[in-house]
């Protein structure tokens, strides 16, 4: 009789301090040695991790009322505009926002030294942040401007809300053009000078539950060094399968997560302001997701190693910016991590954009939390759409 476990059973074991927890990296080796059946019965939870620049991140801040009251119409935090068309003293600071006087790419490539991601990093570091707000004055909210200093401890709420994080898989970016380009995948040298990739491969959360059998709305996760939750699928959630021209399956691809958590209990080590040369500012986010080994199928997917997980190679010199198909094949994370790959017959040096040592530290930390009985699994109230949902991307006309 094949093993079937429930979230409740595993949580009971966690509470009694008897749950067996391993990291995804450890699971890969264990399954190679002992086989899926034995490992599924022995192990309760597998922990994953990723630490990577993740656009589509931001924080809702409820700043508190002034005396006299004020309906904020425009808000700046350390000169970075925050969106305040939500309510009188609520604002959303987005990771990619930059100050209005930033030179952007007018001096190419722009440096983007400070943006919304850096504001979030400063807030979570408990540093003082300069708040400026203007309003137009109403009968109930007469005040028209304020300039003051705040810290995360002074404001009522700070909620990290990232509408799209933890990409299931991502492109291996190369540049076939004849000039160096500056992208969100870093600096790509001309004529296939280098190749950048951006997931933690065998530790990457959504590559380890690729068909969304355990992750859904309500999954409790490691987020920014604290506890957070999966609250929905991410935007641009296209959880299909990568196929090559001959129909060969190169694994699951485009799932994403929408995640949320109390910023006040997070840690600056795991939410770092990030500057992509020539591209913009963003936030590097640490996420770890526990995967309960409910049955052998879940275990088999979670045990996929770097040699069994593939990234599509995409040209960012022409194909990507012009939204044209790119046919450079697939490469395994094992090859990417070796430091060189072959593209069009040429040997190309590789480098990650995603920190593997930090991803490992997240998986280890989450493992310890669960072992100590501090962290129970959140059973999803609804699973997320997977490849069977047949979701396709729309493109904008015009």
């Amino acid at each position, binding site marked *: 009789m094949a093993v079937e476990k429930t979230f409740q059973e595993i949580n009971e074991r966690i509470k009694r301090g008897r749950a067996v927890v391993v990291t995804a990296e450890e699971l890969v080796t264990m399954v190679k040695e002992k086989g899926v059946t034995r490992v599924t019965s022995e192990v309760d939870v597998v922990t994953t991790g990723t630490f990577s620049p993740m656009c589509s991140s931001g924080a809702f801040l409820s700043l508190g009322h002034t005396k006299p009251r004020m309906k904020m119409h425009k808000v700046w935090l350390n000169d970075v505009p925050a969106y305040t068309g939500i309510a009188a003293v609520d604002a959303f600071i987005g990771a990619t926002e930059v100050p209005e006087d930033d030179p952007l790419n007018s001096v190419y490539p722009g440096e983007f030294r400070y943006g919304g991601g850096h504001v979030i990093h400063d807030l979570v570091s408990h540093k003082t942040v300069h708040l400026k707000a203007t309003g137009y004055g109403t009968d109930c909210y007469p005040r028209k401007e304020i300039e003051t200093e705040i810290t995360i401890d002074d404001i009522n709420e700070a909620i990290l809300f990232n509408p799209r994080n933890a990409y299931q898989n991502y492109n291996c970016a190369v540049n076939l053009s004849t000039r160096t380009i500056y992208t969100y995948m870093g600096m790509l040298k001309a004529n296939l000078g*280098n190749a950048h990739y951006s997931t933690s491969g065998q530790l990457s959360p959504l590559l380890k539950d690729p068909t969304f059998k355990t992750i859904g709305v309500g999954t409790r996760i490691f987020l920014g060094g604290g506890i957070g939750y999966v609250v929905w699928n991410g935007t641009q959630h296209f959880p299909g399968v990568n196929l090559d021209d001959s129909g060969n399956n190169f694994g699951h691809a485009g799932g994403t997560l929408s995640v949320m958590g109390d910023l006040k209990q997070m840690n600056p080590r795991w939410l770092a302001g990030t*500057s992509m040369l020539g591209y913009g500012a963003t936030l590097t986010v640490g996420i770890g997701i526990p995967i309960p080994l409910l049955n052998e199928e879940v275990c088999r997917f979670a045990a996929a190693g770097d040699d069994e997980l593939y990234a599509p190679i995409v040209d960012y010199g022409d194909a990507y910016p012009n939204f044209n198909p790119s046919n450079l094949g697939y490469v395994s994370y094992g090859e990417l991590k*070796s430091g060189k790959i072959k593209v069009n017959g040429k040997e190309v040096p590789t480098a990650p954009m995603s920190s593997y040592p930090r991803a490992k530290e997240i998986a280890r930390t989450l493992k310890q939390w669960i072992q100590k009985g501090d962290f129970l699994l959140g059973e999803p109230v609804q699973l997320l759409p997977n490849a069977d949902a047949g979701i396709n991307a729309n493109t904008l006309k015009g």
Partner: protein
Amino acid sequence: MSSKKVVLRFAADITDQPIIYKLVKDYDLIINILKADINPQKEGTLVMELTGDNTEQGIEYLRQLGVGVQSLTEEIIQNEEKCVSCGACTDICPTGALYMERPDMVVRFNSDRCVVCRLCVKACPMKAMEVRF
């Protein structure tokens, strides 16, 4: 044998002379050119490492020709508090001074191999590579 890293500045009127040849031939110096640049005004800048018994005499010869000689005091520092070992710099660094230690995938910096080109200072997403004077 002593070794010294220097920054040389050549005025436009001497950039066409075989000065480095003289350093090798007459002063028996080992020359390792780390960086070379000629600007639109035809002034030249050369960063190089001189090794040999006669480095001081060689530098004196350069000064007599009117070449500006400064010792290389700039250096690049990896701020280990800021560096997250993402690795984005490791294929940008032209000399392999920044590299990944496998299989742990930790970014290491060997300052002996650094030629202070500053590419990493710009490319680092965490701004963890800093110039020190």
